[in-house]
Structures are given as C-alpha cells and as structure tokens.
C-alpha cells in the first residue's frame, strides 16, 4: 500500500464535514434539513389544491349552504325506525357471515402462506393471490360481483369474505411464522401425522390470535357492509343512500343514528368477547 492510498483509506474512515455538522446541536444547517422537505411538501400541496379547486371560499360557501341540511339531520324521523330495523339487521348479518366465512378460509390461506409450514411454491402462489386481493378495495370487488351475481346481500357477503381472506390470511400467516417452533417439534416428537401437527401444533396455539383478528375484522366489516350497501349490497347502507337521494333527511338521520348504534354495539361486543374469553 503506497502513502497516497493509505491516506485515502484513512480519510474515508473519518466522519465527513456534513456528518460532523449534523452531529453538533443547535446548528442552523440541521433545521434546514427539515425545513426544505417541508417547504417542498407545502408547495406541492398548494399546487394540488389549485388543480382540485380546493380553496377557503368554497369551504365557507359549502358550510353556509349545508346548514339547512344539518338542521334537518338533527331531527331524526323516529317513525322510520321500525322500517329501518330489518335493513340494519341485514347489514349485521352480511358482516357476520362475511367475517366468519372469511376467517375460516383465511386460516387455510395462512397455513399455505407461512414459511414454517408450507412449501415454497405453494407459499409464493398463495401470498401473490392475497397480495392481489389486498390491492383491490372491497368496493371494487363488489362492483365486479354485482356484475356477476346481481345486486343484493349475497354479493356483499362474498365481497366481505374475499376482503377478509386477503387481510386475515396475511396477518395469520405472519402470526404462524412467529410461532415458537417447539409446538411443531413437540407434536412431531410424539409421532403425530401432518394434519395433527397442523391442528394441535399450529392452529391451537394461535386460536386467541385468530379470534382477536376475527373480532377486529368484524368491527371493520360492520362499517364496510354499510358502505357496500350503498353500492348494491343492500342493508342499512342502501336505505341511507336512498333517503339521501330522495331528500328524506329525517329518515336519513334516523338511519345514521342506527348506524352509529350498530358500530358502537359491535365494537363494545367484540371488546367484551375478547376480554372475557380470549385473554
């Protein structure tokens, strides 16, 4: 090694001027590093708002014009409650069936996607399928399903099931991969068959995780079933959409109130079940 290359190597191990500057506290250059990206982000936001015609004047005008609607929404039509209960129950059932079926299928997908259980080619295909599914929102899936199966709760259930498989399949596959290998080993050590190893050594230890994710997904499905209802899956979402379309604001207000109660009850119910049985 000659002197020059030695010097070069020696220098490369020393901190650069920039690193030394950033290491010093209260140095102006340090704040500039944050201000510059923030400035760029601000300019981009301003340009985007210009393109989307987003301005303070539009906001003020919109608030002013919507006040009468809000006034109507504050007075729900209680007489519509009886006619809205059945669609509300439909929404709950759509969410329930979609989540239950989706969770069951997701367990099989998760087993096929976990690196400590499934062979590489199977894993690759299943992970790719779940990735594609997650890339499509439930509402887009529903549009396809409505074209194939027609409007109604069945399309809604299918859409939620598919969405549930994509999400829970990935989460449960990760949970299986993080599982302590001793469970599988202990089952193999007693001469258990492959299916027995999977059931007792993999599924049994993650039952609390499956239930916890399933309940979380149920809360999501309740909210999603309302959105999907407006697109064609039926239920309370469709009633809400119809009431808004026909300017029946007191009825729409009643539907909204019912939705709030539904979401609140589903969240509390899920939390209670989780605490009572699976902690």
């Amino acid at each position, binding site marked *: 090694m000659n002197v020059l290359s030695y010097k070069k190597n020696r220098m490369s191990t020393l901190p650069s001027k920039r690193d030394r500057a950033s290491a010093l506290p209260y140095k102006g250059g340090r704040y500039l590093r944050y201000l510059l990206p923030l400035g760029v982000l601000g300019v981009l936001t301003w340009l985007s708002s210009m393109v989307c015609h987003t301005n303070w004047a539009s906001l003020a005008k919109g608030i002013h014009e919507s006040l009468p609607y809000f006034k109507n929404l504050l007075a729900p039509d209680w007489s519509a409650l009886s006619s809205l209960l059945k669609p509300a129950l439909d929404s709950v059932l759509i969410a329930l069936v979609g989540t239950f079926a989706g969770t069951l299928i997701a367990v099989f997908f998760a087993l096929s996607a976990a690196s400590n259980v499934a062979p590489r080619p199977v894993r690759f295909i299943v992970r790719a399928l779940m990735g594609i599914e997650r890339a499509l929102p439930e509402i887009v899936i529903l549009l396809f399903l409505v074209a194939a199966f027609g409007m109604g709760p069945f399309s809604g259930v299918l859409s939620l099931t598919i969405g549930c498989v994509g999400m829970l399949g990935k989460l449960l596959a990760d949970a299986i991969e993080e599982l302590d290998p*001793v*469970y599988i*080993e*202990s*089952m*193999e*050590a*007693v*001469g*258990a*068959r492959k*299916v*027995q190893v999977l*059931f*007792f*050594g993999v599924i*049994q*230890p993650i*039952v*609390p995780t499956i239930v916890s994710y399933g309940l979380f997904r149920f809360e999501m499905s309740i909210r999603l079933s309302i959105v999907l209802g407006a697109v064609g899956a039926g239920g309370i979402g469709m009633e809400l959409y119809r009431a808004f379309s026909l300017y029946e604001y007191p009825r729409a207000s009643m539907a909204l109130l019912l939705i709030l109660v539904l979401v609140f009850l589903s969240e509390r119910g899920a939390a209670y079940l989780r605490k009572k049985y699976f902690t």
Partner: protein
Amino acid sequence: MIEVRHICKTLPGGRRVLDDLSFTVRKGEFVGVLGASGAGKTLTLRCLNGLLKPDSGSILIALPGGGVEDICKVPSRKLRQIRQRIGVVFQGYHLVKRLTVLENVLVGRLGQISTFRSLIYGFKDKEAEEAVAALEKVKVAHLAGARVSSLSGGEMQRVAIARAIFQNPHLLLADEPISNLDPSNAKVIMRLIRPLCEEMPVIGVFHQPEMTAKYCTRIIAIKEGRIVYDGQPVLTQEQLIDIYGEELRQIENHNHERPVL
C-alpha cells in the same frame, strides 16, 4: 435397547458436531450425557428421536413387538410409528400453554389414534383415565383441569414427564430436563425419572454432574462431538476439567471454601 453406531454429523458451515459416536443403552440404565455447551449432546439426543438425521452411521432401536429398526434408514411413515413410543422430555417443556394439563398429556398419544378421531371425536374416557394415572405418577393429578400457562416451571416439567409416560414408551429421552428448575424441583424431577429406567432405557442430557452422579447409572461425556468418557457416574475433578475445559479449574481456584461441582 438402543444402539448408536458410528454416527457423524457436519453442520452446513462445515463444522463437524458429531464425530464417530457409538454407544449402547439397555433397559435398566439411566444414562446421563454430559459435556460443555456446543459439545453435541442435544444433537445426539435429536438424532436418537429422528428429529435430526446424521450424515452417516446407524441408530438401531429395539421395537416393542420385537425386531430392530435403523432410525436413520426407515421411511418417514415408519419413523413416525417409532416416535410414537419414544418419550421425549424437553428443556423448554414443549407444552401447548393454552390447553389444559390433561389435554397436553393426551397429546402424547396423538400419533397412536386416527387423524379423524383426534380432530372430531377426541380421546376416549379410558385414555383420559390413563392420562390422569400418568399425572398421578408425577403427583400433579389435581392440576388436570388447569391451563398449562398457569403452572410453575417444576409443574410444567412434571406434566411433560406425564405426557412421556402416557405414551407408554420403550425409550425415554430427556433434554436438559432440570436446567430451568431450582435445586429442590430438580431433585423431584430426577427422582421421578430415575425409576423409569427399570421399564425402559433412559437417556438424559444434563449440565449438573452432581445430579448425574447421584441419580444416573452411567455417564457418557461428549467433547467436540466425540465420546471422551463412558462409564461409572462418579467423575474425578480432573475428568470434569477434561470435559468442561480449563476454565473450570480457574473457577475452582476462586472458590476455596466449596468446589463448584
């Protein structure tokens, strides 16, 4: 009877962890395998159960119905059948924590019943009674309905032994069964394992020479994948230093009042 003949194992990195190991263990023997960490004790035990396949050599095991099989050469189906009658007690207990004590013991016979029955029907009352009897042997029958997650380390290890007994094994392997336990619990576990050697060969990996001296009938010491001692359970200080290395002597020099081992 289990006979190990010239087994060798090299890890993917090229390190030879088992180097021409040979020994035979018969019914009535409680063999304690000693050696420093990384010497190859646990690997040997895993080979005996077929959880790990040696690169060469053979492991002959006498089957309960008569006949001898080489674990290294049998197809996976046969290996599964052989494993059904090999009890294994692991250092980390290897119990499913969210299942009850009784369910964990019943798991011991999982391989001996059909898949359909294990998934749909479950175990019969007679099998459950036998499982409770196994728990009684290790004195934790009163915990049969408790979840394993609520047990102490000593209790969990007793459940693991009950599971191995419930398998009705013809060979018992114990991988550091007392490493996680306090001295009092360790003694209890050793007293539970010791009488089992009257019914089957028992091989255990230990890190406590004083325990093996007291409870084992024979000691095999492994160093760098080779057997360096095979004989009576009482080892001299020099033999222990030979097995565990010179560090042991240095520790001893710091402790004049009472020897470490």
